[in-house]
């Protein structure tokens, strides 16, 4: 019973992070039809920036803000410099570019920051909270994680649904040509979309890293989980990505707790394959999936 509860709580926390990461992937997919696999090393690099700031003796929160800001900038720069030239071209070129970027950022981080594991601080306790004499697996940092992701999602929702700029961004994603005719600077909106997605990715990176170890590859599996979560939710739906992330977090937490942590990635692969075979349009697809 105790273990069941703790596994579920751990899954919930992790699921929140996967949800955030999946959301970042979906935002970019919706607007530019690219799955940004480089989201993982991009988040990793910003986390290392935070680590450098913390190591220099500054506060966690300064580092936190700096990482998010650098995520924002990195996303914008990547879209402008790397992705823009191939936008509207063959899909495969953009994918190859994100993978090239993946390799570059990985290697760059290893050269600059070194290849070993380093511990990353957490602003809140990473021990379980005591409730009535027993310790449950919900940590102070875990609560912060959940709240931070929820707040981010709320803000994004407000931005997209309630502001003019959000309306412009959605129009650019859904129908760039018509948006352009209506006076929307589509290019800027895409850049902004990448920047925001990258910021959300950085947040996920910081939350995974808190109270744990980081190295250049520490986000690699997270991009897989984010992708699986996004596909669970239908790849096009931000809401689906969030639900998919939570479900996946729970499922993987149970695999890790009851089977073995080494098989978590395999479980994610199996879940992905099952979804693709049974419900290729995602769990919430109303119509039968597109065949092509």
């Amino acid at each position: 019973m105790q273990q069941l509860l703790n596994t579920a709580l751990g899954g919930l926390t992790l699921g929140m992070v996967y949800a955030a990461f999946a959301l970042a992937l979906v935002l970019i997919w919706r607007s530019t039809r690219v799955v940004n696999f480089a989201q993982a090393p991009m988040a990793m690099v910003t986390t290392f920036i935070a680590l450098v700031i913390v190591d220099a003796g500054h506060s966690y929160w300064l580092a936190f803000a700096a990482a998010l800001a650098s995520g924002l900038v990195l996303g914008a720069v990547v879209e402008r410099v790397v992705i823009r030239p191939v936008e509207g071209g063959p899909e495969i070129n953009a994918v190859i570019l994100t993978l090239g970027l993946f390799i570059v950022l990985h290697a760059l981080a290893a050269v600059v920051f070194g290849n070993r594991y380093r511990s990353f601080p957490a602003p809140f306790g990473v021990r379980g909270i005591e409730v009535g004499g027993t310790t449950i697996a919900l940590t102070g940092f875990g609560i912060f994680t959940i709240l931070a992701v929820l707040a981010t999602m709320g803000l994004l929702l407000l931005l997209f649904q309630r502001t003019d700029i959000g309306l412009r961004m959605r129009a650019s994603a859904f129908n760039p040509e018509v948006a352009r005719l209506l006076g929307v600077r589509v290019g800027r909106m895409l850049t902004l979309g990448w920047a925001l997605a990258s910021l959300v990715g950085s947040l996920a990176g910081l939350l995974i890293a808190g109270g744990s170890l980081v190295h250049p590859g520490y986000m690699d599996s997270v991009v897989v989980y984010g992708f699986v979560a996004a596909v669970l939710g239908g790849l096009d739906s931000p809401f689906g990505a969030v639900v998919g992330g939570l479900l996946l977090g729970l499922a993987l937490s149970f695999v890790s707790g009851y089977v073995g942590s080494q098989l978590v990635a395999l479980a994610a692969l199996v879940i992905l394959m099952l979804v693709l075979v049974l419900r290729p349009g995602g769990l919430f697809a109303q119509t039968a999936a597109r065949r092509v």
Partner: protein
Amino acid sequence: MAALRTRAAGWWSGSILGRHLLVALLGLVVVVAVSESVSDFRNLQLASMAYLGIAAGGLTVLTGLNGQISLGHGALMAIGAYTTALLLDDREASTPLPLVVLAAVVVTLVVGIAVGAAAARLHGPYLAGATLALAVAVPGIALYFKEQLGGEQGLRVVVPDIPTWALDLAYFVTGQDLTRSRYVAYLAWFTLIVTFVLLANLSRSRVGRRWRAVRDDEVAAELAGVRLGRSRVSAFVVSAAAAGAAGAMMAVTVRLAAPSGFTLTLSLTLLSAVVLGGLGSLAGALIGAALLTFLPQVVTDLGVDAGLSDIRAAELAPLVYGVVMVLVVLLAPAGIVGTVRGAVLRRRGRSAPPAATTTGAAADPTTSTSTSTSTDAGPDPGASPGTSTDPDSTATTTSKGSTT
């Protein structure tokens, strides 16, 4: 009319098979000549180049001919390598090597069918994502089944003794004794040549034409009766099988199958090899493999000279691959082989202009290498997904299509 065309096609493919075999034979001669004149250490490097080349060749068929991406060829190699290791676990293991390689190919093929049937059926990023998951998942399996798969340490591979006939033959042909490293290099290169001949013929066959048709224009291909899903899955499965053979050769070469040998980086650098060489060209895959094998040493030495620690300097090679990969897509999407071919064709074209130039090439001077001599090119070159070069064709089709 149709019968005539079929017969003509048959004659053509016969002649192409002949040409491929001739190239293969020449390749074999070159391999023997090179292998005999270099050290044991270099022979092991040659073997590495061969297994990377096999995997890259498989990947180039998938990406260049079918327009799909696999981020899991490293993991598929791992499956081939572990199969090999399980079959060659001690000197008494009596399975003959060809059977071992075949087994490695078959096991990888089965995994390829499972993953491919789930993901490659669908259009979009699903195969890339699923193979990425595969790349991340596979090392975990080896760690979980510690007893059977050796955990972190991995499994030793015991290469069987060199058969007497091979020793005799080698002595007869070269006048030198066959060392183990040289034997391994021969094995790997022989496998590479066989794989490449098969891949080259497949890509020229009806199956290969379908792959290209799907890549170039899905709608047109479907109208022409091509089953899109099936065609995508078959391209992936063939590609996976090649990765299995590569894994077997890797196991034989490094005599170890361990999780650390099959990181995500391996999968990604294989992709970079394919991009560097030029998507879709087997020759390009080989060039890419050569770069993967020989560049790290050079770059790492430079890094150490520049004052980096060994460990950090070792990361310079992937850095170079990544940067070059990005630059290739941005500046010369046809890759090394395609760009050189393009330059040659342009030069030739000046004296005798090609009969038909596609619009894609005309619009893009950096890649204007496109002369549509092949009948299987899509009807609308503007819609062709990707930068693609057909293996062994004299013409390369490179179009930056607009999807609007």
